[in-house]
């Protein structure tokens, strides 16, 4: 075998693999993707295989590149908001939030409290939705074809209904504006939101009963694709991928942007950093999101209705300078770096996409695993290719 086996101490509970004398075969190269259902978009992996074991993996990116950063330089600041929806099309609300946060920093725009409450509600709904969907699609990759994902999609549908009520679109929300949000919440929004917040923990319990102690899932996920904390930090991974490795780094706690400074929530962290930890970590994070929602709803009701847009000029011309606005998106640190030359269009518009950076450790995580494990390791990173290539 030419596989580089990583020498490390076995973790408690981890089975020691039985040493089998393996036949050394001719190394073959296999392409996975770019058109493959398990690659969550158009991602190509050039695998070097020894039998069924991955010896080397080379990622090929750029199949979905659509010049968004350059396009934005030709648009006004406001006109770029619909483009941010299309970065990570699963969580357009958080994309909007990160971008408007950066512009508000650049132009120094104040946001009314009600708008901040609405933004936090939308962010946390997006997070619950994304994690419910992630758990389903991870099981899809594992071979539990379509049944578990139906549970996630069903719950997501309710949250998408809420988004449609508030913003007018299910996925391309385009809801946030500089200094607030586009419109106040409609009258029938709050009863539905309360219903979703009340029902969601039951769904998570059910989902855990369905899956977390399932023997097949545990044997497929445990100690597969381990990402140690040091490597996760070195690769710049953020979000659930980093926290599953045991590093309690959450930008909601670090930056305390929006209302997060006054909200009480925990940061769930994993212990080993394998696929199982990444799966469970997201389910627990969804529970924390619901906790945040329960706290924000009373805060929202204290604020006067209609006070949703701060004083932002109609044609925004921020002073020359630069700003970096970042938030904790469901996938990790989503940041927008903007450089202004004083005109109504940005001089530079750069996205720090969590999906892209979280792909960095993939190459070393898959080495030595089987091809079927590679699929779930990739799935456990929860990347959206539209955000990777931009």
């Amino acid at each position, binding site marked *: 075998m030419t596989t580089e086996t990583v020498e490390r101490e076995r973790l408690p509970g981890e089975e020691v693999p039985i040493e089998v004398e393996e036949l050394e075969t001719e190394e073959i190269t296999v392409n996975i993707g770019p058109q493959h259902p398990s690659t969550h978009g158009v991602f190509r992996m050039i695998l070097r295989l020894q039998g069924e074991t991955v010896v080397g993996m080379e990622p090929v990116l750029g199949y979905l590149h659509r010049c968004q950063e350059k396009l934005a330089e030709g648009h006004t600041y406001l*006109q770029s908001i619909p483009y941010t929806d299309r970065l990570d099309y699963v969580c357009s609300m958080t994309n909007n939030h990160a971008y408007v946060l950066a512009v508000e920093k650049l132009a120094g725009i104040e946001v009314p409290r009600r708008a901040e409450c609405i933004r936090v509600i939308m962010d946390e709904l997006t997070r619950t939705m994304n994690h419910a969907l992630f758990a389903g699609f991870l099981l899809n990759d594992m071979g539990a074809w379509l049944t578990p994902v139906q549970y996630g999609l069903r719950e997501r549908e309710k949250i998408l*209904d809420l988004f*449609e009520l508030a913003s*007018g*679109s299910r996925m391309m929300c385009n809801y946030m504006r500089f200094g607030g949000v586009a419109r106040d919440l409609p009258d029938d929004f709050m009863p539905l939101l309360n219903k979703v917040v009340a*029902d969601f923990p039951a769904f998570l319990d059910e989902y855990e*009963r369905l899956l977390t102690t399932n023997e097949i899932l*545990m044997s497929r996920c445990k100690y597969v694709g381990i990402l140690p904390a040091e490597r996760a930090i070195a690769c710049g991974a953020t979000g659930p991928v980093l926290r599953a490795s045991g590093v309690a780094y959450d930008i909601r706690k670090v930056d305390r942007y929006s209302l997060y400074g006054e909200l009480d929530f925990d940061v769930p*962290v*994993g212990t080993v950093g394998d696929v199982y930890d990444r799966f469970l970590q997201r389910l627990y994070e969804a529970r924390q999101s619901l906790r945040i929602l329960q706290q924000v709803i009373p805060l929202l009701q204290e604020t006067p209705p209609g006070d949703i847009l701060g004083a932002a000029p109609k044609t925004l011309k921020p002073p020359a300078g630069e700003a970096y606005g970042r938030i904790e998106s469901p996938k990790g640190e989503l940041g927008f770096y903007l450089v202004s030359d004083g005109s109504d269009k940005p001089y530079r518009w750069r996205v720090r996409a969590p999906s892209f950076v979280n792909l960095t450790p993939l190459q070393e995580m898959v080495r030595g695993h089987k091809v079927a494990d590679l699929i779930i390791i990739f799935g456990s990173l929860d990347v959206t290719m539209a955000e990777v290539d931009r």
Partner: protein
Amino acid sequence: MTMRVPRHDKFQLPGLGLLKGLSVTLTHFFKSYRRMRNWRVPGKVPFPGGSYGIFTHQYPEERAPIPDRYRGLPVLLYDDATRAEFCTACMACARACPVGIIHIEQGIDAEGKKIPYASSYTIDWDICINCGFCAEACNFGAIVLDHHLETARYDRQTLRPTKERLLRPASYYEKIAPTMWAEIREDAAKRLAGTMKRRPEGVGIVPPAR
């Protein structure tokens, strides 16, 4: 606060996890016979059974209700009583459009002076990204977003509608989006009265349907 995620490392009876999962699917199998189709039907309690029941609609016979704010393809409005177009060719929508698909030509009168009337108005529906900035930018209530969903066509040219095909009566918009129309109707009526004074007689009037 940091919180450790439990890893379920303790011994469990082999097969127990599987059985637990199967019990969940079995519950759904039986509960789905209690049809709970009133999810998303207006006037009824939404999601009555939490996560149980039937969540799908038998499209196209059954349709989910569309909220007022739904952002479909942009259309133009005209006043019902006078049949006058609201649009004044101010170009605010064309400037706001991120993809630049609104093409307007301002009308001129006999002396060659510009008048508040769009002599030609085209939207490339096939490129539209449904962002709704045109409707937000419009001060006259002239351009709004339709709620029509089935936009598939055989011919691409039909997705480049001219003004005649874009115009809808204001009562149509009031029917599909009452709250949205209530927000803009007064302002639109006031501004239309001002526009009519600056337009020559008979310009910008939609011919009656045959």
